[in-house]
């Protein structure tokens, strides 16, 4: 075959490699233009691995990461069938709060495993099983190979996977936080002081700073959001983001692997 004959084939292969995961199984939009613009395909890729970190003392408890995931899962469950397999080291997930974030606790199968390899194993089993719509795993240490396996399994089965990172202490968090892995997106959620309600004292609407640290085929971005909880359908409200810290420009669309 001539060299000219190879070229189109190579181009096609490169295009396949570069194709963002979003194009494979479709996306789940956040319903907020600012966030959806930053994500390739206009939403969170289905059938892919997403990583969510807590921040500011939340590394140990993973409360914000769990709530953020619960909101996404609630919307994911509304569009399809199946169960959520949630594997965690300590059984401290509280049902009624999950409901407040839109995820029906009746749709969750909890798996408790004390060690990270077992949690990753349970996730992988879930990614291969029928009747599962999404898997969630709360892990501390994560080898790049393990994340790659999860990502491939998620891609193959079109089951969306979430890794909530939970570390023993700040030291472990600092060591693990920046290690690369195969997740399609990496989010970091931090608590912000709540917005008081019409000048009333007390705890107001909870607010988060949501950072998209890494996104395959997209660019990092950051938003300040208010967790809408009055409507049953939990989503991220970007109303505040327009007024306060402006979102990072996300108009450019970079296609990288």
């Amino acid at each position, binding site marked *: 075959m001539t060299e000219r004959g190879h070229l189109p084939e190579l181009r096609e292969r490169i295009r396949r490699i570069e194709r963002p995961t979003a194009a494979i199984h479709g996306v789940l939009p956040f319903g907020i233009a600012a966030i959806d613009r930053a994500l390739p395909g206009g939403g969170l890729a289905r059938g892919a691995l997403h990583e969510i970190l807590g921040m*500011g*003392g*939340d590394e*140990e*408890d*993973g*409360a*914000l990461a*769990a*709530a953020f995931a619960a909101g996404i899962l609630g919307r994911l*469950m*509304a569009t*399809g*069938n*199946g*169960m959520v397999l949630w594997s965690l080291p300590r059984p*401290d*997930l*509280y*049902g*009624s*709060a*999950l*409901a*407040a*974030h839109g995820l*029906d*606790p*009746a*749709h*969750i*199968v*909890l*798996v*408790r495993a004390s060690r990270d390899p*077992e949690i990753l*194993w*349970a996730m992988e*089993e*879930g990614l291969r*099983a*029928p*009747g*599962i*719509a999404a898997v969630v795993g709360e892990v501390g240490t994560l080898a790049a190979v393990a994340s790659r396996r999860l990502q491939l399994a998620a891609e193959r089965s079109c089951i969306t996977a979430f890794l909530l990172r939970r570390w023993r202490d700040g030291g472990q968090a600092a060591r693990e936080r920046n290690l690369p892995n195969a997740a399609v997106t990496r989010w970091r959620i*931090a*608590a912000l*002081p*709540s917005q008081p309600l019409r000048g*009333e*004292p*007390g*705890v*107001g609407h*909870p*607010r988060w700073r949501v950072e998209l640290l890494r996104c395959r085929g997209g660019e990092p971005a950051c938003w300040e959001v208010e*967790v809408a*909880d*009055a409507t*049953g359908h939990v989503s991220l409200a970007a109303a505040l983001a327009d007024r306060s810290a402006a979102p990072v420009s996300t108009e450019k669309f970079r296609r990288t692997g």
Partner: protein
Amino acid sequence: MPLADALSFLPGLATAAAEPAEDAAALRRLAEWCSRYSPWTAPDGTDGVRIEITGSAHLWGGERALAADLTARLDRRHIATRIAIADTLGAAWATARFAAGKSPVILPPGDCRNALAPLPVEALRLDPATTQGLRRVGLKRVGDLSAMPRDALTSRFGEMVARRLDQTQGDSPEPLSPLGEAPTRRVRLSFAEPIADPADLLRATERLVEDLVPRLARERIGARRLDLAFHRVDGRVERIRLGTARPSREPRHLVALFKERLDTVDPGLGIEDVILAAFAVEPLHPEQIEFADGAQGERTGGIAPLLDRLCNRLGLAAVSRLEPRESHIPERASVRVSPSPTQPCGLGPPSPAMRERVPSAARRVRVPQGGEGLVRRGSAKPPRPIRLFEPPEPVEAFWLLPDDPPFRFTWRRRRHRVTRADGPERIADEWWRPEGSGAGNAVRDYYRVEDEEGRRFWLFRAGFHGADRPPCWFVHGVFS
């Protein structure tokens, strides 16, 4: 004879301390190993093993071949044995211990009475006092007893003599209570050369499952509990026991369950027999299974196969579901229950937890850092933390007025300054529960507080002001 006397007769006598417990354990292991011949085996006293071979001798080519195989295998392990095969347990016992002739002694069927007649009365498994009594009156052989009138025997020596006689001669039944539960269905695979390679173990498992499944299918049953026993060359038995959430005879599923645990099997020097037994079985009709399409086969059970795999590796308690309960005690309002595979998955009607979800702060009170006092009562449910610690974690807290939330607290060696707070929400114990009354923190006042970084905690104060002990503070959960 005391040891000192014995040593005086034979100074070079080798001695060893008696270890009855060890001996019993070894005998039990031997009995377990014998289950390669039949599922009904049991240790017999301190020096024997009983095996019920009815219906399984033909698998070995007859009783003589079975006995020869057993002898050869035990000889290889330097276990001196006498083997007897007879119609009844009692006859086999008597023959093995008292009959003349070389082992194995095999009594022809229906010949118990004649064969046992010349044996001493000790062969009847009676207690020593009874045998002595029999001998004293001149009854030395089993045959002598058979001729005696039963009434006289019973009135003189108790009913045990007559019962043993009947049992030995097959006139009254004597069931063998096996070591383990007797399986419903059983398949066996033996190897001329012991195997040890994990790949071989897996292949053997697959063969056995393929053997078992058609039998289950023929009878329209599915297994709930399975036991895979690997008989090692050295006589030990390694087992994998597993249960399934619903009756199953899906080969891929069963093999996957065993495969998960095969690495726990230590083959030692090699494995010569593998036995797969199905215990609990339940009816399973063919229409519930798709055999035709392997890829679709697992879909029928919904998530049941997944639950099986998770439970078998992580333990039954590891897999659960959250279920809302009617309780105002936070830790009782959401409980973990074991998942039921029959429950339909996916979108059903929303659970009660979803219907009553109207989060909003119920009450507001003054915060030390400023702001006017305000109490608002609402009917809506107050928000709950997404992580609930069990048990609550104690904190060191500072507060001003009795009903105030703390303005500062230290938790996990980290100091938090409270900027906003909601509360108190008083949660009293459920006094109608017997275990709840009289607890130290029976009444808790909960506050939702926010620190300067924006993290939100669920604190509670246990105990009252003015009581003999000052109130303590705990973190019970973290809000999102």
